[in-house]
């Protein structure tokens, strides 16, 4: 099953590379319009064709990768950065009211899907890529909090934690010295999965206009633009869609491969 890992890693690196390259160079300038060349099917010059403004779709896809990756990565960072400490804290105080409060709070956030959070934020602050990051990030918090709490709870039952306690170590010290290192694998795998879900969520938010705004390139908005053109120029809808599918597929395969490689018994959630 090593194949899964390599394919996933390959696809992920491909998109990371495309996003990195787009910072310095894209085949065409995506901010200059060339209406005479609009909706050209793929050819030797524009490998993926042009859109309704005559922009090169390959360049747009490369720039869009940057937006997707940036949004999803920061959102996972927010989720991990807040969720993991919360989960560890709850587990250290297992059974106490603090644990109960943290977990109830988490349950509540699960009733607010990223899209609903994005709607609320956008209604008050207007649409932007930052909103997408916050909306997806907030939803990631309970994912990581629950995961790390349940992993930490089972670790707290282990004898080596009891041994550490008899050595006079505080719950805080035990959490970062013994608990955290033993759930790194789990966090890496779940982080990869959340990254891929973040890509999907960012695309959906941009598609309905709650995410990145022009002139920032984004796969979701490319699809929104393509919607009315799909019958006359299907290629404008295919390229960004395939980009999303391949990037998400790559991350999922990477996650599965990492899990098989690190520890096949890891329990991650995917929803």
């Amino acid at each position, binding site marked *: 099953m090593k194949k899964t890992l390599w394919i996933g890693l390959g696809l992920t690196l491909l998109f990371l590379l495309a996003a990195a390259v787009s910072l310095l160079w894209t085949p065409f300038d995506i901010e200059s319009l060339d209406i005479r060349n609009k909706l050209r099917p793929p050819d030797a010059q524009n490998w993926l064709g042009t859109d309704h403004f005559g922009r090169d779709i390959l360049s747009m896809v490369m720039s869009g990768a940057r937006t997707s990756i940036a949004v999803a990565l920061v959102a996972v960072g927010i989720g991990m950065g807040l969720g993991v400490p919360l989960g560890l804290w709850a587990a250290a105080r297992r059974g106490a009211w603090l644990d109960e409060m943290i977990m109830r709070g988490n349950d509540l956030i699960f009733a607010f899907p990223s899209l609903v959070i994005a709607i609320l934020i956008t209604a008050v602050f207007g649409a932007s890529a930052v909103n997408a990051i916050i909306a997806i990030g907030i939803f990631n918090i309970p994912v990581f909090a629950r995961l790390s709490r349940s992993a930490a709870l089972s670790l707290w039952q282990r004898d080596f934690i009891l041994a550490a306690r*008899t050595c006079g170590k505080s719950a805080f010290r035990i959490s970062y010295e013994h608990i955290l290192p033993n759930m790194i694998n789990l966090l890496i795998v779940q982080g990869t999965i959340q990254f891929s879900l973040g890509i999907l969520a960012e695309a959906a938010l941009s598609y309905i206009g709650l995410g990145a705004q022009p002139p920032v390139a984004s796969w979701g908005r490319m699809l929104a633009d393509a919607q009315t053109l799909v019958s006359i120029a299907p290629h404008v809808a295919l390229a960004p869609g395939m980009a999303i599918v391949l990037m998400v597929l790559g991350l999922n395969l990477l996650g599965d491969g990492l899990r098989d490689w690190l520890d096949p018994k890891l329990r991650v959630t995917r929803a």
Partner: protein
Amino acid sequence: MSLLAVDNLSLQINDTDILHDVSFAVQPREIVALTGESGSGKSITALSVMGLLPQGTVVSGQVQFDGQSLLDLPEPAFCRLRGNDIAMVFQEPMTALNPVQTIGAQVAEAIRIHQRITRRAAWTHAAKTLDRVGLPNAQFPLNTYPHQLSGGQRQRVVIAIAIAMRPKLLIADEPTTALDVTTQATVLALLKDLVADFDMGLLIITHDLAVVRQFADQIVVMQKGQVVEAGPTEVVFDQMRHPYTRSLFAASQHQVDLPAPPKPAPLLSVKDVTRIYKRPAQTLFGKATAFTAVQDVSFELHKGERVGLVGESGCGKSTLTRAILGLDATQSGEITLGGLPVFSGNAPQHSVQRKMQVVFQDPYGSFNPRHKVARLIAEPLYLSDNPPQGAVRAELIAQTLQDVGLTPEDAEKYIHEFSGGQRQRIAIARALISEPELIIFDEAVSALDVSVRAQILDLLADLCRKRPLAYLFISHDLSVVRSVTDRVLVMQAGKIMEQGQTETVFQDPKHPYTKALLDAAPRLDSPV
């Protein structure tokens, strides 16, 4: 013709040799014990008779049951045989039953797959079977769920499932290992009774030679996938032709040579300790009930003394241990070590905890898998006010490893590179490094094979000869406690029932519970 005849059974899983030319036979009404240490291949032998081998297994040889060959029996025919003519009971009663089905449904199912009878008739039969294994309907209705039963009761349900169709052969894989001594005795008696009643053959797999001696007609001793000795139990125990049988027997009976304890000087004092847990209410408007895990327990432990704490599961030994270690607060009472309370205010006292260390049961769960041995065993140094650094620390670690029979080079290894016995040595090294006055052993040798256990017990005796160490030895295993302690406490339902010099208590128990415990424990020396 034998009921079950295994001839030259050899077996490989993924190209690893597991069994090699195993042969033995079981007659009707006969109890045959397969015995040996872990990795000897006893369980896999049973699974090959049941036709439940894992995938990727290559088998050769012959397994004849009641005249038909089992190894080439097609799966549908085997399904008709399993549970009907051959049945099996497993080791872990806590997980052997489906948690979301009632016990009635699980027993009735065993009947209905083999017999075309109505649901009602099957349930009546199930009720009778449960009654037969000692779970009368009035007390244990058919709609009871497994989680409402104790381990011993669940094992009876598993037995009921197995015997519901009156099989000709019953296979029991370590059926009492997870149970308390008194429960073990009743379950073994039930099995013996069923053998006579149903004219069954019973193949029992156990690592416990004392159980074998008291229980089995025939014994088959296995080592590393081979049968090293077999025959009628009395003959085998009498002659012990194979050196492995002799060493197994010697290890099971192992007595350590303890130095005499020094003059009594108080070290640990437990005074009127009570620990109560709250339990959530069981009914809608019921109040939360309280469960007293430890009640008014008092005892003293002197410097250099080895004290045993004996009791069955749920008797409160673990709760008491946690309280002594300062991990949990108590409701009332006082625990002091060297005159200082282990738990003062809201937290345990570092200066007191330093004098006390612990060794746990599970050699696999006791260590952080991500740290090297040096860091693992140095952890208690955290308690000292100025922990040794650099070369002094490395020297201390090396010395401690040597003291427990390991090498200084082991310090740079990870825990997964060690066997179970070696891990317990590392656990003892961790307990020794801060030079404590008291070490608590919480079932510390229970998970080990007899030969390894004997070595660890010798190490313990050796250590307390060289260092001023007191032991609190918590165990359910009476023979182990008898061999390594000077004094013993017997605990039941949160209270200490009896305490005294170990030999006195074992030879002349005063309390009825102590007597019951001693009677129930199978013994190696005197067959019934």
